[in-house]
C-alpha cells in the first residue's frame, strides 16, 4: 500500500493495512517479463492520475503528494502529454496558503501549500482564514509539480513561503513540517532545502544550522539515520546527502575529485551504500533487511550524487527490479506483490538512474526529471566580431551536445553581454555556443 509522503520510505508501510487487497496470495508467480514494460506503466499511471481507487483514501491528507507521483511519473515515462498542464497549475495553486499582509507572514504560521482540502477552508466574511497552514512536504510536492509542467516559477509568491518557513526551523537546525507541531527529522530538512533550491532563494532557512543537524545524523557505520542517534537508513541517507548537495556543502561527483577534506566521512558512507546491494541484486534500506524496490532510488541516488553509481552491479539490480514489476503496471515493494503508487514511482526513478531507454533522465538531488529541475543561471557571452544584424540567436548545447534549451533570441546589437537562461543543474558547463550560425568564443558562467 502506498505510504504517506514521498519520504515515508519503508518504515511507513503496513503490510496489512485496511483496504489493501492481500498482496502475497493473489496471483501465482508467472515468469516476469525481461523488459521494462513502459506502455503498461503509462496506462497504470494515467489511470491513477484520472482517478485513484478508494484504497488510497487513507492517503487523503497527502493528495498533493499522490498527484506529484502521478504527474512526475508520467514525465519520467515521457508521457506528460497525458496531463492537462493548465488544469494542474490552477489546481495546485489553489492549495497555497496566503497571508493577508506582509506582517501576517511573520505570525508563526507557515504559508506554504496545504496537502489536501482537509485543513483548507475559504475565508469567512471577515476574510479570516481558519487554521490556514501549509505543510513542508506538500510545498515541496506543489513546487515540484509546477516545475514539471513548466510553470513560470518567477510568478509564485515566494516571499511569504520563505519568510514563514523560517519559523519551522528548530534551534538544532532540524525542521518541523507544520507550525502546529509534529515530529522533526531529516525528511523535512530535505524538503526545506529542496524548496529553497526550486525557488532559487535561500532566505527560507539557516543553511549552516541545517548542515550541523545533518552531520549529527551520520551514524558510526557511515550511513545517516533520520535523527541523531538513529540507525542508518537508506531514506535518511538520501535526505542527508541530497540536502548537503542542494545547499552547496558537497560538490557534485565527489569521488572523482579526490576530495580529501569533506564535511562528511565519504569513504565510510560510500562503503555503507555499496554494501546495501544485496545478494538478490536489489537494494536494502538497512543492514540485514530485505531488498525493497524504493531503495534502488534512495541509495542509488546517493551513489549517483557522490559519483559512485558506476560501481554497482546494474545487471543484478535490473533483474531484481523486474521481479517487482507488476503485470498490471507499476512496481511493488517486494517481488511478486501488488503494485502501489509509491513503489511504482521509485521504480521508475530507479530505472531512470539505470538509463533505461525511453525514460527521461533523472535529477538525483530532487527526485524528479532533469528537465523539470532546470534552474536559472547567468550566461555571459562574447562574439568573435561585432554582429551586424540586430538579432542574436544563441543555441545552447550541453557537454554531450544535447540541446539544452533551444534558442534564445536577443534583439539588440551585442558582442558582449549577459543573459539569464534555464539550465539543468548538472550541465552547467557549456561546450558550444552558436551565434547566428557562426561559432563564437566560449562563455563562462
Amino acid at each position: 500500500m502506498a505510504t504517506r509522503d514521498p519520504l515515508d520510505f519503508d518504515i511507513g508501510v503496513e503490510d496489512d493495512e485496511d483496504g489493501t487487497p492481500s498482496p502475497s496470495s493473489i496471483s501465482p508467480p508467472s515468469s516476469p517479463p525481461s523488459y521494462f514494460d513502459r506502455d503498461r506503466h503509462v496506462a497504470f499511471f494515467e489511470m491513477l492520475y484520472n482517478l485513484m481507487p478508494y484504497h488510497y483514501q487513507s492517503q487523503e491528507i497527502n493528495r498533493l503528494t499522490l498527484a506529484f507521483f502521478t504527474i512526475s511519473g508520467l514525465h519520467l515515462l515521457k508521457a506528460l502529454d497525458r496531463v492537462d498542464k493548465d488544469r494542474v497549475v490552477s489546481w495546485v495553486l489553489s492549495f497555497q496558503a496566503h497571508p493577508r499582509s506582509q506582517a501576517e507572514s511573520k505570525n508563526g504560521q507557515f504559508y506554504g501549500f496545504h496537502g489536501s482540502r482537509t485543513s483548507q477552508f475559504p475565508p469567512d466574511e471577515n476574510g479570516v482564514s481558519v487554521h490556514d497552514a501549509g505543510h513542508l512536504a506538500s510545498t515541496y510536492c506543489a513546487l515540484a509539480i509546477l516545475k514539471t509542467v513548466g510553470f513560470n516559477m518567477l510568478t509564485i509568491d515566494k516571499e511569504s513561503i520563505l519568510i514563514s518557513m523560517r519559523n519551522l526551523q528548530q534551534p538544532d537546525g532540524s525542521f518541523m513540517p507544520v507550525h502546529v507541531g509534529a515530529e522533526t527529522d531529516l525528511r523535512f530538512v530535505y524538503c526545506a532545502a529542496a524548496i529553497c533550491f526550486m525557488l532559487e532563494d535561500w532566505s527560507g532557512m539557516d543553511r549552516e544550522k541545517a548542515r550541523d543537524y545533518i552531520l549529527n545524523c551520520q551514524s558510526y557505520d557511515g550511513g545517516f539515520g533520520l535523527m541523531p542517534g538513529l540507525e542508518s537508513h537508506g531514506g535518511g541517507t538520501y535526505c542527508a546527502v541530497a540536502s548537503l548537495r542542494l545547499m552547496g556543502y558537497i560538490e557534485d561527483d565527489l569521488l572523482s575529485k579526490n576530495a580529501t577534506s569533506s564535511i562528511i566521512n565519504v569513504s565510510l558512507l560510500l562503503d555503507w551504500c555499496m554494501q546495501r546491494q544485496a545478494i538478490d541484486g536489489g537494494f536494502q534500506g538497512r543492514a540485514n533487511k530485505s531488498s525493497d524496490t524504493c531503495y534502488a532510488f534512495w541509495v542509488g541516488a546517493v551513489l549517483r550524487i557522490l559519483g559512485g553509481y558506476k560501481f554497482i552491479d546494474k545487471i543484478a539490480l535490473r533483474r531484481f527490479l523486474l521481479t517487482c514489476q507488476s503485470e498490471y503496471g507499476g512496481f511493488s515493494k517486494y517481488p511478486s506483490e501488488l503494485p502501489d503508487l509509491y513503489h511504482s514511482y521509485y521504480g521508475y526513478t530507479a530505472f531512470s538512474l539505470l538509463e533505461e531507454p525511453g525514460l527521461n533522465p533523472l535529477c538525483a538531488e530532487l527526485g524528479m526529471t532533469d528537465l523539470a529541475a532546470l534552474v536559472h543561471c547567468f550566461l555571459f557571452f562574447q562574439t568573435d566580431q561585432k554582429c551586424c544584424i540586430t538579432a542574436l540567436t544563441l543555441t545552447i548545447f550541453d557537454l554531450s551536445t544535447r540541446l539544452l534549451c533551444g534558442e534564445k533570441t536577443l534583439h539588440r546589437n551585442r558582442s558582449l553581454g549577459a543573459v539569464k537562461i534555464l539550465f539543468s543543474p548538472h550541465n552547467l558547463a557549456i561546450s558550444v555556443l552558436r551565434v547566428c550560425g557562426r561559432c563564437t568564443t566560449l562563455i563562462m558562467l
Partner: protein
Amino acid sequence: MESSEDDGGEPLSRLAEWRDVTPLPQDDGPNPVAPIAYKEEFRETMDYFRAIYKADERSPRALRLTRRAIHLNPGNYTVWHFRRLVLEPLNSDLDEELDFIQRIANSNSKNYQLWHHRRWVVERLGTNVRAKELHLIKSILSLDAKNYHAWSHRQWVLQALGGWEDELDYCQQLLEEDIFNNSAWNQRYFVVTRSPFLGGLTAMRASEVRYTVEAILANPNNECPWRYLRGLYKDDIESLVNNHEISSVCLKPCQEFRDAVVALWTSDSLPLDPDLATAICGILEHVDSMRASYWIWRKNKLPVAA
C-alpha cells in the same frame, strides 16, 4: 469523558447527537487532479470533521468524532492536531489516551502521527509513565524488532525521561535472539555512548571490543559487528589499526569472507601495508563480484608502496 466504545459505525447523519451540525463537504474545485474514489463512510466522517474543525468546537462529541476519523485515516495530522486541541480543555484522562493510542498502534505501528501524539501525551504525564512507556515499546519490538518508529520513540524516552539502567541488558537480550538485528546493534552504540551510567565510549571500549569480536567469530558473515567494531574507534582509528588482537581476528577469516576489509578501512594519512590491502582487494574482486568495480577502484586508490 470519552466513551471507550466506538459508536458502532452508524452513519453520523442518522445519529440524533449530530442533528444540529451541517456537514461541510470537501471543496475539490472544478478540475481536481488525481481525485480519490472515497467510500461513503469516509466521506461522511470527514464532512462532519470539517464542520466541527471550522467551528472550532472542542467538546466531548468532537473528541469522539476525531476518534472515528483517526480509525479511518490515521495519517491525517490535522485530525490528530485537533484532537490535541480538544483534549486539553476537556481535562481528559491522558492515561486513557495512551491506551487509545496503543489500540490504534496495533494495526498502525508505523505511523508518524500516532507516535508524535504519543510523545505529546507522555510529555504531559512525565517520568511517572517512563517504565510503562519503555515496557510498551518492548512489546511492540517483540512483534517487530526493527520497527524504526518504536526505536525512535525509545531513544526519545530515554533522553527525555531516563531509564538507562537496564538498556544495555535489553540490547544484549535482543542480540541473543537475533545477532543480525542492526537496530539492536545501533541501540547498543547509542547506550554505550550516551548512557550517564556507563562512562562513555572510551571507558566502555575494552569490554565492547571483547563482545564484538566474539560476535564476529560466531558469524563472520554478519555486517553489523564489523561496522560496530570500527565505530568503537570512531575518532581514534590509529588504535584500531595498531591493535594486534583485532588484526589477527580480522585476518583469520579474510581468505574466505567478504566483510573482512571493513575493519581494515583506514584514512589515507595512516600507514598501511599496501601489499596486504592490495591482496585483499584482489581477493574481493573475485569473491564479492557484485562489487568488483568498487574493489578495483579501492585497490587503485591505495597508497603506492615506497
